[in-house]
């Protein structure tokens, strides 16, 4: 393998360059200025750990954002992935609708987050939105649930703008199922296993790696979720639907507090690392034993 060393390096270099150009500067600035007091248009001033102390001890918005982020990560890496995998397995039965369903399912994922947010904002509008109008058709004439702004439904409504749309998971899993040697299925069927059993005992175990990938992608996507929240609730009512990215955005560009915003940002990165390590442990990714 030693003769390949040069190639290995060469194959890695472009990725490393790309990483340095796009991320390295950001990481350095992010971590560096998290220890400073830095407002827009002024120079950063070193203040040690004050930002961190404030974040952990005296910031209820931060706590709320963290809790929401964690809840969304859990939902996304369980319910969301479950929906995606289940749908993939159903589509893989190749029944009459499968191509149509696969394409249609992807539509909400194709559209930009901002457009999805705008779409939902209109559909859930209490006055003229489609949902309330339909409910009114069923005889509840005065029905006017304010889905996004009533604190009883806001969290649910925001969650529903992404939770069911697991098409990416479905696509990844479908690709993986397609790569399973047909022979495996056939021998199982010859043994008389039912469709459900084939899926449960043969397909699912083989999907462990890709499901792991999906859980990581879906879960960590919640560390970045910003545009839909910004477009629909802006984190409100109060801080009911605030998450860490939204809080970071607000702190930097509304409070003009780049320093503190980067403190929360650094926390988010560390938090994400812990999360990924945790996922890796659960799915034992990296021990390539396929």
């Amino acid at each position, binding site marked *: 393998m030693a003769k390949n060393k*040069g*190639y290995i390096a*060469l*194959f890695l*270099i*472009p990725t490393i360059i790309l990483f340095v150009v796009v991320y390295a500067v950001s990481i350095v600035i992010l971590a560096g200025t998290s220890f400073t*007091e830095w*407002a*827009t*248009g*002024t*120079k950063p001033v070193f203040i040690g750990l004050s930002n961190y102390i404030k974040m952990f001890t005296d910031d209820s918005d931060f706590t709320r954002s963290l809790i929401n982020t964690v809840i969304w990560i859990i939902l996304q890496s369980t319910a969301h992935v479950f929906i995606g995998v289940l749908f993939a397995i159903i589509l893989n039965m190749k029944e009459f609708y499968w191509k149509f369903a696969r394409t249609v399912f992807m539509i909400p994922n194709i559209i930009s987050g901002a457009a999805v947010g705008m779409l939902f*904002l209109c559909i859930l*509008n*209490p*006055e*003229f939105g489609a949902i309330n109008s339909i409910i009114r058709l069923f005889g509840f004439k005065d029905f*006017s649930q*304010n889905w*996004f*702004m*009533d*604190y009883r439904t*806001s969290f649910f409504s925001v969650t529903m703008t992404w939770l069911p749309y697991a098409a990416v998971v479905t696509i990844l899993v479908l690709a993986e199922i397609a790569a399973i040697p047909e022979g495996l299925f056939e021998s199982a069927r010859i043994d008389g296993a039912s469709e459900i059993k084939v899926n449960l005992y043969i397909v699912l175990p083989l999907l462990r790696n890709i499901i792991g990938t999906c859980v990581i992608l879906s879960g960590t996507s919640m560390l970045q979720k910003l545009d839909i929240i910004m477009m629909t*609730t*802006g*984190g*409100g*009512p*109060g*801080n009911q639907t605030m998450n860490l990215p939204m809080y970071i955005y*607000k702190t930097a*560009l*509304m*409070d*003009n*507090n*780049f*320093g503190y915003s980067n403190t929360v940002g650094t926390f988010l990165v560390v938090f994400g690392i812990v999360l990924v390590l945790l996922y890796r442990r659960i799915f034992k990714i990296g021990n390539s034993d396929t």
Partner: protein
Amino acid sequence: MKKPVALLLASLMVASLAACGTNTASESTTSAAVSTSTQTSAQTGAEAKSPVTIKYPTYRVGTHYSAAFEKEQIAKFNEKFGNEVKVQVEEIPSDTAYNDKMKILAASGDLPDVVMGKNGINEILIKGNLATPFNEYLDKDSEWKADIGDEAIAANTRDGKVWSISDQKQVIGYFYNKEMFEKAGIKPAETWDEFLANCDKLKSAGFTPLALMTGENAWTTNLMLSSIVGTSGEAGNKFMNTLHPASFETPEMIEGLKKIQIMLKKYTTKDAIGAVYANAANNFEQGKAAIIANGPWMIGDFSDKSKSPEGFDKKVGVAAYPGSGAFLSYEVGYMIGSDAQDKKDAAAKFIKYKTSAEGQSIALELGNVLPVSDKVQPSEEFKQKYPVFVETIDVGNSAKVKYQYFDTIVFPNVTDTWKNLYPELAFDKLTAEQFAKKLTEVAAKNK
């Protein structure tokens, strides 16, 4: 054997370098004061005697109500001064995106030559010493100074320095649906108690009284709140004319918030909580609400058939707020963000044109915005077309109490907070007192 990959890499590099080479001529030569070693963007020095290029980002594009006059002003400027100054317009749709980008540019020391100072951007520029005051330019040019007027200049002066040139005056009362008022048997209220009683009457006549909204900057709701506070007596009026109030826990604010709480609960449309401006505007224009607090730029919409039913403009009246109140404030307007002297001069020239009597008149005729100077008067044709506009000016002139709106006096992060707090107020999660306390806390967060 390493060749293929090396070749691939090299060609990628070349491709990106080639791309760098093109189009650098239009790059700005600005390298702003705080900029460190970051400004290495290639320069070709092709602008020796050619016109000075200035960068002007604007959010007045697309469906923005000022898009029409912005276009006309720039076209006219190019016609007149195109050989001296080349304006490089950057379209930034959405006000939020504009604010964000200006802050990023300010933090990077790359401000454009002409900056709109609203939404707290002026504060950042002043604090960071990133802008050039207009004093010298105004001293040299008495005609321009007269076109703007002393009041507008004073509104944007800090410590003797004129940091920005206001491009429009805001006089804001509220619009009401005359037909609905007639059917409910009411007239515009003189006191706030009467105002609420009127709302009751409208409601029993089968109309939703108020087109409020709490999304975005809670604009129409906040106009009501500002008016309640601004007309509540000396202390309240002073509050509404104070830049950056530190504490919102004043009796007037709390009283005002209590009234707003009632309005949000009883007198507004179902979608008011969380609604954006578009919702409120449509509710009023489609006859779903009787009253909307908003400025004169909306008047054009009343006769625009794609927005309002035919003949709607005849039904709209305008009134001062109870207690004879109206908003009167000058927009922050344009600032000079350039670094090099020739760019500064060119930027000043551009701003001068935009705020001159001619520029103001274009904005008035095409955008229904009030000129800062009394010298600029609407044409007869315009008055015929928009009688409500003339009424608005009258309302502004006859109102006894004048005050500003929240967006001009509070920090941007406070402006951004209303949308999170109002729903809690409306759903009884917060009391008026707690609401005011939260505002104080948010204001303290500002850097």
